[in-house]
């Protein structure tokens, strides 16, 4: 009986100290997982997940602090990808899924206060103090961070319109109905 306890204790001590030593000796700074998670996130830096940007959210996911369904711009597609990467269950999105949007400044109402310029995380708004501001469409990520700071509520979000450049073939559906157009 005593031998058994001693042997097991010895084993525990040896293994424990080996692990302890290894955790100090082989300590690695940073988590490579963070990079992979961040690559999936849409980089809108919108903060809708409750973290100040995509990287902090990625870090929180990697640490296991945050759930994977907190990113509305990433949509269900993003949740699915994260679940795939992390081997977690797919969960429904924790918010409403919206189509991709674009901020638009009503240039007639803009008073040139520069508040939105400071709020934009990707420098997609140009303008100067007391000059009209405008959104550079191709750079806007649709994060909505500029909407709140505007004192005159001249910024609105609009879903990105379907154009020939971003038009997509639809998933084939059963029975393609012939066009019923008069000749």
């Amino acid at each position: 009986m005593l031998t058994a306890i001693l042997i097991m204790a010895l084993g525990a001590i040896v293994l424990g100290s080996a692990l302890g030593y290894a955790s100090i000796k082989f300590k690695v700074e940073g988590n490579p997982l963070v990079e992979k998670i961040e690559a999936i996130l849409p980089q809108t830096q919108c903060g809708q997940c409750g973290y100040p940007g995509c990287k902090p959210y990625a870090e929180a996911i990697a640490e296991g602090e945050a759930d994977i369904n907190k990113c509305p711009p990433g949509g269900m597609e993003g949740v699915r990808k994260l679940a795939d990467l992390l081997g977690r269950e797919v969960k429904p999105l924790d918010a409403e899924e919206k189509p991709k949007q674009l901020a638009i400044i009503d240039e007639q109402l803009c008073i040139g206060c520069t508040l939105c310029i400071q709020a934009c995380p990707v420098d997609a708004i140009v303008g100067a103090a007391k000059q009209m501001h405008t959104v550079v469409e191709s750079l806007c990520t649709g994060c909505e961070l500029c909407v709140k700071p505007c004192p005159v509520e001249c910024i609105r979000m609009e879903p990105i319109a379907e154009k020939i450049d971003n038009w997509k073939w639809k998933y084939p559906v059963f029975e393609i109905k012939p066009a019923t157009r008069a000749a």
Partner: protein
Amino acid sequence: MLQRLFKFKGGVKPATNKAPSVQAPLRIAPIPPLLVVPLHQSIGGQPTPLVEVGDRVLKGQPIGAADKWVSAAVHAPTSGTVIAVEERVAAHPSGLLTLSVVIEPDGQDEWIERHSLDHASLEPERVREILRDSGVVGLGGAVFPSHVKLTPAASVPMDELVINGAECEPFMTCDDLLMRERAEGIVRGVAIFRDLLRPKRVLIGIEDNKPEAVATMQAAVEALGENFEVVAVPTRYPAGGAKQLIRVLTGKEVPASKRSPEMGVQCFNVATAYSAWRAIAFGEPVISRIVTLTGNVEQPGNWEILLGTPMQEVIALAGPKADTNRFVMGGPMMGFDLPDLSAPVVKATNCIIAGSPTLFPPPAPEMPCIRCGACALACPHELQPFELYWFSRSRNFGKAQEYNLFDCIECGCCSYVCPSHIPLVQYFRFAKSEIWSRERDKNMADAAKARFEFRNERDEREKAEKAERLAKAAAAKAAEKKPDLPQAAPEPVETPTVDAEAAKKAAIAAAMERARLQREAAQPKNTDGLTIAQRKEIAEIEKRRAPLQAQQQAKPNAEGVQTQNSPKDQQ
């Protein structure tokens, strides 16, 4: 001369249905009452508009300039007045809008000044520029700018120039008619291509179901004393695919990762050669093209139609029968249903087929894949459509790409042979556009990340600089306080600062006043030349805005504080 022919894998033999539309000779369509010329008609950059509303344009006058090397210019198809430069329905399966120049013809059909040139006396670079500025693009349907393809590869000597007159799509006869009636022009155009690329051989491939075209082309080649080989190739769809025709004529297989010039071959459509000759020898840009009107119509045939002619005008020429229920642009294999008949004829429009329930019966319902492998046997690119189908269906796009989804030319052979009537090509198109969209999103995300990181870095730096400045100022103040240090007459310094500040304020006030005046002066210009609908919209907006403005005027102080605060916030 015995030409050895090769075979490409797969392919199908659908009923050609070409006979009805070759009976009548080539006819020239009348000028329509309105022309809608889309600016983006070729692969590559979007040409920038060169004309404004109200301009009078002459026939052949450039209205859209090529904005980069892979791009081609667009021209006015006839003389007239530009009545709009706006978004109009495009000849595209989506039926979405594209920036177009709308021209009201004046009926005089007055040409712009044309220069007839001899390409032999010009620098090759100049010839390519002329072709680009004449809007010469691949008229077989791919509309890739031809001048780009006419630059020989630096490393590989050009062995063969393949001229594509195969026209393998059923129903379509526009190239056939062109070869029958304008063979000389084609051969002269091919000579231009030959002089630019300097290939060892020139092969003109024509499917053997067009013996008249083969004969006239042969005669034209002989008459002009050229050594081009006119070859009749076996009729099998898609023999007119560039890679397939190259394979048939030269035995060379262009691998997935390479383009044909890297294999020493280049391929052009006969109509492209013809338009290149017109552009060089007559200074006539591409403003019209031959379109086959066939299917369920009274008078099938080929018409030379001005680009920008709305489809309904074109269709009226052939007289569709009463039971026509759809119109297909392109052939029945690769074409698409026109969603809107106000879409114009563009450089890619080679054929319009009127369809009826008897001509194109509604597709049978899709049934489960039975793994028969017929699609793999039919695929001319030796892909495995059934694999691609499963991966596209389950949205496993990475796998689909691994199975070379992007080598699919969407020829439709697999869908044609599928015993389960699975619309395979539609699945592939869906998968392709999904992948493109994801790539766009990924690029957007990467760019956003870079900008975000740069912004953070800049914020940090600015903060550090500000802290440094403050520290310096504090140090200076501390130094000032020390009584034993001699001061360099503080009083004279102070007065100019006050003056300067006053001047600055005055300047700002003046600037604001100027801005206000400017705004007022500029205001009316915005509302010039608006449509009634737009005016209505503006009126509505103004109505909505009125209470807001009243509110603002009511408390001007609040706004004043706001504007005064803003520069400080920015620091």
